[in-house]
């Protein structure tokens, strides 16, 4: 599983950071960072939650 973020769509709601703090972070630069691009299967539930809760649909998963 690979996490793909469309930064042009990201609106910094931060719901992904809450859902999967190991994977997403808003940096000091005010930009969303993907900390782990290919998370382990154990993080799948959190990452899927981040995908479905993103208000701008900016996150997608590639298998």
């Amino acid at each position, binding site marked *: 599983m690979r996490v793909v973020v469309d930064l042009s769509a990201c609106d910094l*709601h*931060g719901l992904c*950071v*809450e859902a999967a703090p190991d994977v997403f972070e*808003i940096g000091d630069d005010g930009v969303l960072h993907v900390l782990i691009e290919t998370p382990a299967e154990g993080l799948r539930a959190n990452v899927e939650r981040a995908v*479905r*809760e993103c208000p701008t649909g900016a996150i997608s998963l590639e298998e």
Partner: protein
Amino acid sequence: MLRRIVVVGASLAGLRATETLRARGFDGELTLIGDEPHRPYDRPPLSKQVLQGTWEPEQTMFRRKDGYDALALDMRLGVRATSVDLRARRVILADGTFADYDRLIVATGARARSLSGMAPRAGLLALRGLDDAIALRRELMNVSHVAIVGAGFIGLEVAASCRARGLHVTVIESLPVPLSPALGTTLCEMVAALHRDHGVDLRTGVSVADVSGESRVASVVLSDGSRIDADVVVVGIGVTPNTEWLEGSGLTLDNGIVCNDCGEAAPGVYAAGDVARVANRWHGDSPRIEHWTNAVEQGVHAAENSLAGPASSTSFSSVPYFWSDQYDRKIQFVGRARPHDEMVIVDGSLADRRLTALYRCGNRVVACLAVNQPRALIKYKKLIADCAPWAAALTATAAS
């Protein structure tokens, strides 16, 4: 053994419910019923990108047409559910057809309230659905003066979009400040100033006495006797939950569908989104919530519990979150504030219109409002979710 699940309401909550059912392995018949002809679409862009003309309506669709193949839905769009027979487990539709279910998820949402006593006529509009947005955008292409009734989030977002189009905008609000007094008067006044600086004529503390114009609106007469010329009047005074079709069904209806903490309204029947009043373990009440994230969370929750059954259902626990984009400001709010809660600005300033404010109830931090400070919100949301002491929130502030 669950064979058939019916979801009534084809917007965000209903869509997320169907997606969750399939993701959790439900492979039986799944029916999605919606009274609009459109595939499920996203509402937040309607008052912004669509009205401003930067997005075409098609861009609000959650999935492309072929994106539904994987969900294998019996999607019935453009047809309204008219009643439900709980005993027979059957939803009856306006076209005379029906849909039988083992589990039912109701996500019929809400509709815009209209001004009482005002006859419908050309130029008098509300903004709730995609067709409303298309109609309003068409109107805005040919007018110069727009009056907006109601300075809630929708009214103010429409105001900002109309200003972006260079239109004259008057906003009429019966309360002394825009938005909600529960957010704190000083913050509401800051938002009022934001709009005035962008050229909006914001009239607070006055109500609409009349909308004049025979076949088409011409002006709005206010309770103080003043008259505002308007080519278009947009009414944004809240919504009414769509529950009439359930009257007499046996479900408990009281400003929405009353549910337990599992989102269940009756055995095998769940509700989610704007129409639902689900008991929320986080604060112990069951309010009706009209936020985007609430529709997602309750749609998912209803789907999971409908598969789990009563013995294995989970309680709903969620910290409400909403946002609003107006001009170059993003207002984010998390938690729950009530009119008597104390509000303290812990970072930034009113003058910069970039700030973080915390709300205190007793010795707890209960809410956070951030204007153009998205990181702060994430930090405080966790404390609010944990019902942290006020002192812990101030410590977090000092640490940042």
